[in-house]
């Protein structure tokens, strides 16, 4: 996994509450057995009309948001299904940061696993970023994980808090499984002391 330290990028606003993972990646794309190539299916039913053509009204289809790598959205982003395909799709589409007031637990965990940073800001700050991304052409933010700070080139700045161990892992791009395997002795001891009852 690539380390995440500081990221600067264009911001796309998708300012809706309770965006569920069924919207981020609809079920017909979950049958693939690869981790790659999900980007073109992200928000499929919102991005594309029933005939398959791109809906020019949808935020991510607008030329001004092309190449955006920071998504700003409203509360409870990523609720619903545990499908990690949602994060693979967002990452493959180019997003490295999602900013929202709150995130669903499993989605947030899945983001960490893929080097995507979820930044929880309060509702006023999130709304402000969404407003700026709509009002200011080519609006960019700098997300600094070392300083735990989000800022633009003008006056906006906000601090965020993040679990220390998650920050450490993202900063160093650490392999989660490798970390757990360092505790092989403890795991083996646990297993020896806790045989399954009855089976």
């Amino acid at each position, binding site marked *: 996994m690539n380390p995440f330290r500081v990221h600067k990028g264009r911001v796309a606003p998708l300012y809706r*509450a309770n965006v569920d993972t069924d919207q981020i990646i*609809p079920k017909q794309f979950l049958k693939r057995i690869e981790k790659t190539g999900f980007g073109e299916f992200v928000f499929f039913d919102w991005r594309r009309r029933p005939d398959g053509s791109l809906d020019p009204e949808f935020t991510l289809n607008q030329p001004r948001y092309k190449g955006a790598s920071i998504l700003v959205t409203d509360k*409870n982003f990523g609720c619903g299904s545990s499908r990690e395909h949602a994060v693979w799709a967002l990452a493959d589409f180019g997003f490295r940061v999602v900013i929202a007031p709150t995130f669903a637990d499993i989605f947030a965990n899945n983001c960490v696993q893929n080097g995507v940073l979820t930044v929880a800001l309060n509702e006023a700050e999130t709304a402000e970023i969404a407003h700026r991304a709509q009002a200011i052409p080519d609006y960019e933010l700098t997300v600094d994980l070392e300083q735990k700070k989000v800022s633009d080139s003008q006056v906006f700045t906000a601090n965020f808090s993040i679990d220390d*161990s998650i920050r450490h892992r993202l900063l160093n791009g650490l392999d989660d499984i490798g970390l757990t395997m360092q505790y092989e002795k*403890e795991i083996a001891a646990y297993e020896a002391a806790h045989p399954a009852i009855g089976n």
Partner: protein
Amino acid sequence: MPEKRTLFEKVWDEHVVCVPERNPSLLYTDLHLVHEVTSPQAFDGLRMAGRGVRRADRTVATVDHNIPTEPRGTPILDPIAAKQIEALQKNCKEFGVPLFDMDSPDQGIVHVIGPELGVTQPGKTIVCGDSHTSTHGAFGALAFGIGTSEVEHVLATQCLPQRKPKTMLIQVNGPLPKGVTAKDIALGIIGKIGTDGATGHVIEYAGEAVRGLSMEGRMTLCNMSIESGARAGMVAPDETTFAYVKGRRFAPKGAAWEKAVAHWRTLPSDPGAKYDKVIEIDAATLAPFVTWGTNPGMVVPVNGRVPELAELKTDADRAGAQRMLEYMGLNAGTPIEQIPVDRVFIGSCTNSRLEDLREAARVAKGHHVNAKVRAMVVPGSQSIKHAAEQEGLHKIFQQAGFEWRESGCSMCLGMNPDILQPGERCASTSNRNFEGRQGRGGRTHLVSPMMAAAAAIAGHFTDIRTWQFN
């Protein structure tokens, strides 16, 4: 460790392998359930890293999400779905994981067969690459959904680094009113606390109404914990739990059974144990509910109306509601009982167990599905299908005009050919009414099995409390 602990804290404490410096606790997993959709990339990851499955003996796999519910043996026409099923077969063989395959008499929805086989037991930690893993909490297990990277993590190490969630007690006081089921308790709770009301928490459900539920009902209730954002839902094990588990294939036997039950009796929360949040609900305020919007928190009683925007609680709800009304093709103020349905789906890990089918059959008996409605019943597992047929439930459904199909997740998420057409309106016993969940443009209303069966017959939603049972 506090002197008085909750059910969750006891199960958690018992599974902490170690607490590494500056990292979350390493939590041991007793049971890992695997299915075809969220596992192929995890097995690939193992292969790439040269890792094996640490405890294949604590891993159980089945196919459920994308298999057709046509008679078994019918070829799978979708080549990508077929490839995903083959991948699971190949992976299970290569890594030695037991698989209950398409042709197995034990195949079924992963959250249905775990309890049926007796691998789901009180006090266990259970994970699966599926958010409805919360179902197994009905037994007093700590069970939660994980993503594919975590599936790989558990396959490789049998452990997961986990930050300890907060605790929430939801106490449902008093007995359930007539016509109100476990599904309605779940919908009532989500309607009250919202789809993020329990984010970061493990819910413990308690109170007279919960205690009075069968294991099937408790599974329905815990199943929908994730729809309020909860990490997991749990019910303390009791005699009802032990009676359900006893004698099942993988349940402890003989002296091991006595020892297990003695341990399970220590799990319920200590009197006076503290929760981070407590919510009390009077069961008398619950009704047969119907969702009207595109998230499971948009709930009204069947004798109510589609709400006016001004009645909604938060700004976000109001902003979303207009969009929901448009998507759902509904007008504010419309009485729920006047909304016609095109399709009815009775099934899913929420409501496809024998008790659910019995209740639906009791409603359907001697009636006929409305001429404008297509209704299907999809048992949760082969074993439920078989048991239902032994009781003649399939005859009741078929005579009433319901389709009787093979087991799987089916139209809950429409990964197989069972989907809604654009604009079709469905009364569904499943768990999610998200946009497009059951098929692009499809309109889903979540209800209990009895309410779904009644809607199929009436052709519109109807209050089960006034139903003419034959």
